């Protein structure tokens, strides 16, 4: 059971109340990029076994999207932060 405290509304949400948005920090390229760069954007994800930065939405609550650092094996949440913020944990991982 995934359990995340929404950084906007402050509520602890279970996975039933959340929507997963996939990997975070995938930059949307400009129209002018090469086919390769564009299809990388479309299809390629890091898919790590372990620490993963990702997007979640408090969809049954306040409706806000936020970022999370999660372990994809243990489902431990290492950090949660708003889009406009910077994560300590995420920087350490990077």
């Amino acid at each position, binding site marked *: 059971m995934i359990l995340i405290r929404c950084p906007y509304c402050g509520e602890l949400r279970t*996975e039933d109340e959340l929507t997963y948005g996939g990997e975070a920090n995938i930059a949307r390229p400009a129209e002018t990029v090469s086919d390769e760069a564009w299809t990388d954007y479309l299809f390629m994800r890091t898919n790590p*076994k372990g620490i993963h930065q990702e997007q979640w939405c408090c969809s049954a609550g306040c409706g806000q999207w936020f970022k999370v650092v999660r372990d*994809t094996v243990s*489902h431990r949440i290492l950090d949660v932060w708003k889009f406009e913020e910077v994560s300590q944990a995420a920087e350490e991982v990077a």
Partner: protein
Amino acid sequence: MKIRQYSLRALALCALQGHRDWPPAWRTPQPKSSYDVVIVGGGGHGLATAFYLAKHHGVTRIALLEKGWIGGGNTGRNTTNVRSDYLFPESAAIYDLALRLYEDLARELNFNIMLSQRGWLTLIHNQHQMELAAHKLNWLKCNGVDGEIIDRAVVRGMLPHFNMGRDARNPVLGAFLQRRGGTIRHDAVAWGYARAADRLGVDIIQNCEVVGFEKSADKITSVHTTHGRIHCERVGMAVAGQSTALAAMAGFRLPLTTHTLQAMVSEPIRPVLNHVVISPATGVYVNQTQKGELVMGGMLDLYQSYAQRGNFPTIEKVLSAVVEMFPSFGQLRLMRHWGGAVDIVPDSSPILGPTPVRNLFINCGWGTGGFKAIPAGGLMLAHSLATGSTHPMAQPFGLDRFRSNRLVDEGAAAGIAH
């Protein structure tokens, strides 16, 4: 005297000796320092690859490396369903090849895989699904694959425990039936291929993890394992759930994400369900094993996960759907639930064939449908490993399709998970 052929006669003869004469189903060799082909992954696809490579292509110096025990990944965790009622001709071709190979596999391997072609029923709940079913039926007939649409009364006869009453939330107008669909004893597929491959000289090395690749230019020259370095000419990879990590080791990326697919069984009961049933309204499927347990599964857990374990929200969704469909199954008991790690590709179709590493060939991305494709997946990878080229049937499934966006999106065409 060691009896090598399996038969009723052999069983009877051995019984007289207290079954002391059975040899090991496969050897436990130490890895040699060099092979022609190294296959990474001892699941169904890897084992089938080894078998076909040895049988059809005469390659004898083959090592199959498995980091745990053979058949211990998704081969040993899936819901054992097989069918080939796929829409796109390229998918239909590959899955129907798999089913045809399965149909003869027990005799080919001399190992009973207990293929039970009890019929696969995709329920039809509304007019739109009826139109989809009609389309599917036409397409299958054009592709030369069997299928039929049965009406409500026939469904009622086939599924006596199914709720056809007015209180049912999802009415049933009929079902799409593929009679050749059914179930297989999953472990037997791994063991049967392993035994047959072993007899053709393949070295099956368990508890041997690949830890790196040694490359020269864009070719792998040797594989580093927990049992030491193995030199090889070509490498095949069939490691569902670990594909991203292995590809990274070899220096390239794959367009896939790893998710948990859950499955669960009830306690064994007397035969109450003689077919495999899936409801598109819920994505939930049910069949009953030969031993009597109901095997149930549903949709993926939508977030990426390597956890390989079950999780209660999905269990609740699946089981409430089962009880909604079969109210009397509410009396049964959930005995065990688990999860497997599956590789999901954007178009839910496999990735087969060459990779950016010249002598490394891949078989991955089967998503939730890998078990039913094992013989074909093995045949395709064996072809690549033997010839260095891609089998015509595997052409549409190359890694290059993502550059041109020529996807084979069965899910989008069918509206149903595999």
